[in-house]
């Protein structure tokens, strides 16, 4: 404590006043609520003018009932760490993203049923100490709320009602360890697992993915290839037995494959960074509504995330500034929107759309 702080002098633009909370508010539910944008450190992240206090959404109820936009719920806490870019992805895709702490859902303060898409981001939930995603999956399966329901009960109901679930990296691991992916049996029992990379190490590198043409998932509609980074140490998919493997292939549930430079699925390192069975980078369930993958599409929202962006931009100055990863989020947001308008027009058609 050797020097008193130097305050900004007269050149400082006026600051928000005390009765005006500024851009970032956290409501009593612990959600970060913003007029412009609901994630990250929005003090400087939105150029939108400040709204008055009355206009601020003040609780979760108001948030979730703004149904003009597709609602994405993003879980965080306990070591999850990719929630900010996940929220940004949905925001850029035109949806509204709400980040909540897992305990708010587990304790019943927030209901997943108020949302259209439930998202499990990457990170190291509970440090991955017992194997990636295991402790979190365990919590969802066993921890009961006051009514005696587990969150898995709610998630099953959520999926059954035609809604969508996405897991990336650690989130994918959670879905797999819970048994929600691939769930061939429909009993939510683990049929595959994700374990240590064949290399025995964590790696951050960019890979090329090919979308399985047989895949039936709204997340991947119209997509053929994707470039995305992988950042994991336990991404190697192991399938229980030959029958399960055959069923996964038959259903096209192995929706994404690691490919080499030519775009053919490969088991060669480092193109296939972890040695996964079927060179598989992502899975869907049999409905296509539950989707998970090891690589990080939410880390490629802008062209400038790509390691070769500078050369590509030089080659083609008109190159889109959007990254491949964003397409996936646009897909699902558009799909939910069309599902909704179809539901409004023809309520009975609902089941066929999903």
């Amino acid at each position, binding site marked *: 404590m050797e*020097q008193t702080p130097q305050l900004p002098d007269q050149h400082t633009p006026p600051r928000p006043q005390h*009765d005006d909370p500024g851009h970032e508010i956290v409501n009593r539910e612990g959600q970060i609520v913003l007029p412009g944008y609901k994630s990250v450190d929005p003090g400087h992240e939105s150029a939108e003018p400040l709204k008055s206090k009355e206009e601020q959404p003040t609780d979760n109820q108001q948030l979730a009932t703004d149904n003009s936009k597709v609602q994405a719920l993003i879980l965080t806490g306990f*070591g999850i760490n990719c929630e900010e870019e996940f929220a940004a992805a949905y925001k850029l895709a035109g949806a509204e993203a709400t980040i909540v702490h897992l305990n708010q859902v587990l304790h019943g303060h927030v209901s997943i049923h108020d949302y259209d898409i439930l998202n499990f981001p990457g990170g190291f939930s509970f440090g991955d100490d017992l194997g990636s995603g295991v402790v979190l999956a365990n919590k969802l399966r066993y921890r009961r709320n006051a009514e005696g329901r587990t969150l898995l009960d709610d998630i099953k109901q959520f999926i059954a009602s035609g809604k969508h679930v996405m897991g990336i990296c650690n989130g994918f691991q959670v879905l797999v360890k819970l048994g929600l992916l691939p769930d061939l049996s429909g009993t939510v029992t683990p049929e595959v697992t994700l374990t240590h990379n064949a290399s025995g190490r964590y790696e951050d590198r960019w890979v090329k993915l090919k979308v399985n043409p047989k895949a039936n998932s709204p997340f991947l509609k119209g997509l053929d290839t994707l470039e995305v980074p992988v950042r994991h140490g336990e991404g190697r998919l192991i399938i229980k037995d030959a029958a399960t493997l055959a069923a996964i292939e038959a259903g096209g549930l192995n929706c994404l494959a690691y490919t080499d430079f030519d775009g053919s699925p490969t088991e060669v390192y480092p193109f296939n960074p972890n040695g996964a069975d079927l060179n598989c980078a992502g899975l869907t369930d049999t409905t296509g509504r539950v989707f998970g993958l090891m690589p990080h599409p939410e880390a490629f929202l802008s062209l400038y995330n790509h390691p070769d962006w500078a050369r590509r931009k030089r080659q083609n100055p008109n190159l889109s500034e959007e990254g491949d990863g964003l397409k996936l989020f646009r897909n699902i947001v558009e799909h939910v929107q069309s599902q909704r308008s179809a539901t409004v027009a023809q309520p009975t058609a609902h089941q066929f759309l999903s």
Partner: protein
Amino acid sequence: MLKPGQHDGEGQRVADAAQRHLGLTTGRVQSTALYTVRYPLSGEQLRDFATHCLQDPVLHDVALDEFRHGSEYKSYILVAKLPGVTDDEGISAQNALGDFLNQPLDTHTQHIFSKRLYFLEHELPESSLRRLAEDLLGNKMINRFEVGPIAQIRDYTPRPGGGAEAVTDLVPLVGLSDEELLKLSKDNLYALNLEEMRAVRDHYTSIREERQAAGLPQDPTDCELEIIAQTWSEHCKHKEFSAVIKYKDVDTGEKFEIDSLFKTYIKNATAEVNRQLRANGNDWLIKVFSDNAGAVRINPESLFVWKVETHNSPSAIDPYGGAITGILGNNRDPLATGIGGARLLFNTNVLCFGNPEFDGTLLSNQLHPRRIFEGVRKGIEDGGNKSGVPTVNGAIVFDDRYAGKPLVYCGTGAVMPMQLAGLDSWEKKIDAQDRIIMAGGRVGKDGIHGATFSSIELDETSPATAVQIGSPITQKLAMDFLILATRRGLIKCSTDNGAGGLSSSIGELATISGGAVVELEKVPLKYPGLRPWEIFVSESQERFSLAVEPAKLEELLALGREMEVELTDIGYFTADGSLDVRFDGESVARINMEFLHNGVPRKVLEAEWSKPTAEEPNLAAGLDYTDVLSRLLGSLNICSRESVIRQYDHEVKGRTIIKPLMGATGQAPQDAAVVRFNFESWEGVAVSNGILPRFGDLDAYDMSAGAFDEAVRQIVAVGGKLPNLSYGDGNFWSVNDNFCVPDSVYDAVGNPDGKHKLAKLVRMCQALRDATAAYCIPLTSGKDSMKNDFKADGVKISVPPTVLYSMTAKVEDVRRTITSDFKQADDVVYLLGETYDELGGSEFYQLFGELGANVPKVRFEEAKALYILMGEANDQGLIQSCHDLSDGGLAVALAEATFGYGFGAEVELPKGLPVHVQLFSESHSRFVATVAPEDVVAFEQHFGGRATRLGRVTPDSQLTVRQAGKTIIAASTAALRHEWTNGPVNRIIGFGHPETAH
């Protein structure tokens, strides 16, 4: 354990490593996770818990109450944790058990203990097994090993010690002789010198009556002395940077006195920079040197917070633990700046190691440099990755003199709103009666004496308790909690519990209100048996101290419960001028704050400079420069670090724009990292590191100036602009200086060249002052580590005087930044800046075992003019690629620029300096840049004589360098990249090639 037939990657790694590092043939190794459950469960519950929560149904089998193994295994190694050592895996299992049973478990007791059990095919003697265990599977400071033949497996589960030890001893000081005072200091690891011990004794002598009147004992308590020792430690008080230094230049006879290095060369220099900034409408310097981290304003809504620190001593003893607590501890600095709750944006790290291929004999308790390297690397991986903070760049420097004590620099950048709940976020305000809340992890014996321990040289008897264990997940929870609590206005201010623990954090916060009362019996412990003084100075990790208004306390505690962060009310702030520590109502320590913080006697030190004699070598004529370039690319300090970099997550948060390796190949090394702040604007920050210890062997001034320039030019290379170029441009720079030097206090016997070492430090500081003034770049925070020596068996290994400048600068639009790799064939290649005959200390000379004499000098005026021109050229989009010249000079920079894609280059060197000087001189302030053919006229007009046209980028993967029609270098760039990629670093760490498939 794994099902039969599943590939045991860990077992195989152990077998491979045993063979490679220790020459032990283990045969096959089977790895098994072992959990000891000490919780009343029925047999059925236990089986269900194990099968449903601990095993992976696809991969694993469960065995209860037996050590199941294949019949072919002959030996075993059990790796357990010593009592009180953080057991994250056990805690997670306990968490899972609570979920499984649907009942809250008493978290105050550890019920589940995790261990690893390895079975080895070969029958190895116990000594070999123990060696394997200690060298590869754990660390005897934190692990307990059981080894032996498989028929006699011994288990080990830590038993917590007995009841609490509410014992406070008195330490009689009055009447002690000088020798006795010194012995007391050494025995108790106070790290105080004689004068300081005398000052303490005299203080207690002078306040005898006062203390008697207050009902306190005359003699200090153990806790009081510990608090004083820790507060007065070099680590906390920077006594040498504050000392009076008598400087003498032996060559010129010049003499002068420096009234504190810190004040003269750092604080005052920055004050002058700030004056110039403000005079020019640039008022973004918000907080310097007065908090856990420096803060500058990004824009009216937010602050950028920046801190770099070292964690050298712990990393020497426990590389993994030292590095992980280094990075996590450094994360806590920005997190706890001002009110607290900044959001971490990125990490960076610079590591200095001994030669990892060292094959000589190690001293007692000295770890092999390779082991330190691998351990530190892993610590940084887990510390960053598990916290969700990208490690966006870094550097590794090798020099034999780091073989005793490695240097581990950790840096963290963060963003904080200008206002938190209506208050200025960077301010720390505390009033009397505010509550003191401890948040985060619990307190154990780990890390006791860290602050004082880091202030002395290491020797073979260095204490085990000084090592701390990090838990990134505990800290992540605390971090998430702080972010919310500060935004809800529940916290008045926060600080981290780092070196010195509660003693340091509360001692410092208490200076704001003017005192504090701490009730130590309330502090939650990992296990009983700690004495009050141990609780107060323990450096157990992942803890923050918070100041909270009494009215907000309930709400804060409720939020803590919701987010599962342990919060404990352990006392309150006062204004009575004393630090009052109690245990169960009994006084443990009561110290006058004025004496505690200002009573340390000032040191007077001597520095004596004489220029070392050095000569330029005579190298053999007729060198093959293609071969030299290949060897340089494969040399320890230049070769690729890819195997290290790829194990760090450098893009979590989705904002990293320039990563350490770029290009289509992902193998083009970059100069500075660039990270955008958010997804809504294109504003960002460039991050660089300047460190050049080798040049210090020739002149510490030039080394320090060069390191500063290196960091500046790396930021300029990616498109950053110097600050204060126009009125109110708001282009912030924030720099941390980190000095790591050997013991520089003269002692006729122990440190005969101390005066010369101190003179080097003075010269480093002088260069720093000159550089800040020349570029108008302010320092915002920094650290000094003064005793980087390792002593054992009568030998001392001292680090070379080292300074790291860690720079950050605002980038207006990250889309306009520039990467180092060539972008297109036929682009024209230029050299920007001037080359001098400055091969002294170069990697080129190093190749021939020479040092040389002509150390590169920074010509500040010329450099600044060039950097300004580059900023203007970037505004016009004239530069397509730009790579700064550093280790290995022009030749290496040209080669590296081809690594991003399959390009080559044809280069013609101008006449003038000898070829080897042009190729390999490491003169500062230079770049290789490429320009699109259509921009050549504008570019040459803009740069005039500062740009030298070298040639063009070619599509053919050939690097050709000619002079006067003669070919000097002709190499395939693929072959050069191969040399670089397969250098010693990647060979040692290994690429992630898949092991034998199962």
